[in-house]
């Protein structure tokens, strides 16, 4: 239960930290950390408007997305705190829950009948398709390295006998890049763009309003925190006292949000045709990690 609570707390601050970092870096004071949550609160109290062409999918998709991500949150170990749901092979369900959330977003975008949303949906499908192998190869490497098959055990890297800080850093790098793609951040997408033609995720929610938009935003905050928690799990030894683990968890979350904000301040987004290359590069780095693990375990 503590793990879920920590992810929810982190998700409440994560987006705010990114916005605040970007503001500070660009010389502005910026909004308060909780501003994104306040925006969600405002949206929650607004009414719903549906496009005339939309059907039942547009109505159920946001709720399915939120619950898929919430269940995924329940499966993530947080710095040694046991997740609510944990079993052998749970990482497959975890990946499929993220995929289900993406699938619902895509069909909801198609359901709206807008050509712009269809365009964004097709891009989201392509990028999702390309980034999933990176996650699976990475987890396969961890399974081989630790000999375990549940997320709680495979992310207990610092406690394992084959642990090397280098692994933690590579995993953090790959998960960091997966986070950027899954959450449609710079350099793959720009959440602040105002041009529909270049949007990916934002264009898919153009027709959403009020409560539906609020829960989609909440889901995206939680997704950021989920990946941040995975990174913290690979870097924090589970054997540390609880207080230290909590402290390190929040430090890593703040650092991760800060890095994303920092990157977004100084980096422009890629041209659309460069995104595939970036995603393939992330897959290849995962493959290199997997090969290194094979050699480490003398399996090659």
């Amino acid at each position, binding site marked *: 239960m503590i793990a879920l609570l920590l992810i929810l707390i982190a998700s409440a601050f994560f987006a705010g930290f990114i916005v605040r970092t970007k503001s500070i870096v660009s010389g502005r004071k910026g909004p308060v950390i909780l501003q994104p949550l306040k925006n969600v609160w405002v949206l929650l109290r607004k009414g719903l408007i549906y496009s005339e062409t939309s059907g039942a999918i547009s109505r159920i998709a946001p709720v399915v997305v939120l619950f898929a991500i919430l269940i995924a949150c329940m499966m993530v170990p947080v710095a040694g705190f046991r997740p609510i749901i944990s079993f052998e092979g749970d990482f497959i369900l975890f990946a499929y829950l993220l995929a289900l959330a993406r699938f619902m977003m895509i069909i909801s975008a198609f359901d709206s009948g807008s050509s712009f949303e269809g365009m964004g949906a097709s891009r989201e499908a392509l990028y999702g398709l390309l980034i999933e192998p990176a996650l699976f190869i990475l987890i396969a490497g961890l399974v081989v390295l630790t000999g375990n098959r549940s997320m709680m055990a495979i992310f207990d890297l610092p406690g394992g006998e084959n642990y*090397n800080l*280098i*692994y933690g850093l*590579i995993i953090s790098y790959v998960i960091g890049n997966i986070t950027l793609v899954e959450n449609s951040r710079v350099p793959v997408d720009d959440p602040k763009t105002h041009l529909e033609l270049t949007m990916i995720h934002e264009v898919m929610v153009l027709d959403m309003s009020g409560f539906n938009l609020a829960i989609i935003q909440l889901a995206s905050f939680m997704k950021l925190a989920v990946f941040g928690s995975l990174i913290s799990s690979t870097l924090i030894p589970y054997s540390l006292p609880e207080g230290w683990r909590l402290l390190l968890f929040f430090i890593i979350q703040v650092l991760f949000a800060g890095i994303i904000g920092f990157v977004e301040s100084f980096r422009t987004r890629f041209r659309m*045709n*460069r995104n*595939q*290359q970036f995603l*393939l*590069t992330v*897959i*290849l*780095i995962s*493959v*290199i*990690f997997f*090969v*290194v693990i094979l*050699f*480490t375990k003398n399996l*090659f």
Partner: protein
Amino acid sequence: MLTLLYVLFGISLVYIAATEKFKHYIQVYTIQGVLLFGMAIIELKNFSFLNLSFILAETIIFKSIIVPYLLRKILLRTGIYNIHKRSLPGNYSVMLMMVMLGISLVLAKVLSMPSVNEVYTVIAYFTLFTGLLLVSARKLLFGHLVGFLIIENAVFLFSIAIGSEFPMLVNTGILLDIFIAVLIMSMFLTRIGHKMGGFEAETLSQLKD
């Protein structure tokens, strides 16, 4: 520490295959020189002044200082900064790199010998294929030039893999070969390239006695 060097070297190869800017080629080549120095020092069995100075000269001085300096000069003189727009797109380069990594693994396994370090063999094959990719998939001569230098890095890695079985003299000979090839290409790029009307590899075929 060695794991870090292996991984960084692998990532540097991925990067050089994916990037489209020649200045990144030079940066990656410089970093590779430092990484090779680290690997060679860690693997060095006989710490003698001669060995250390040879490794230092070949990696840091040659690969990380002199060659990058010359390459930068070439770029400034020729004014070419990006790969040719008709070159193989980065997507395909990265996909080919994945295939090459697989082939490197298979080759290292099939051709394995007890005295040879398999990790270095895999990295060496992977580096060799990356060099070949640059030579075959890049249209501008500068890409070929860096490709040959990367192939030389592969030879250096083979020498580490084989260890004491690989005489330093052979390594030096290969290094000189590559250096001469690079010098000739640099000459073409800086002296004749403008007169020939381009810096593409195809223009070399127009050269006559």
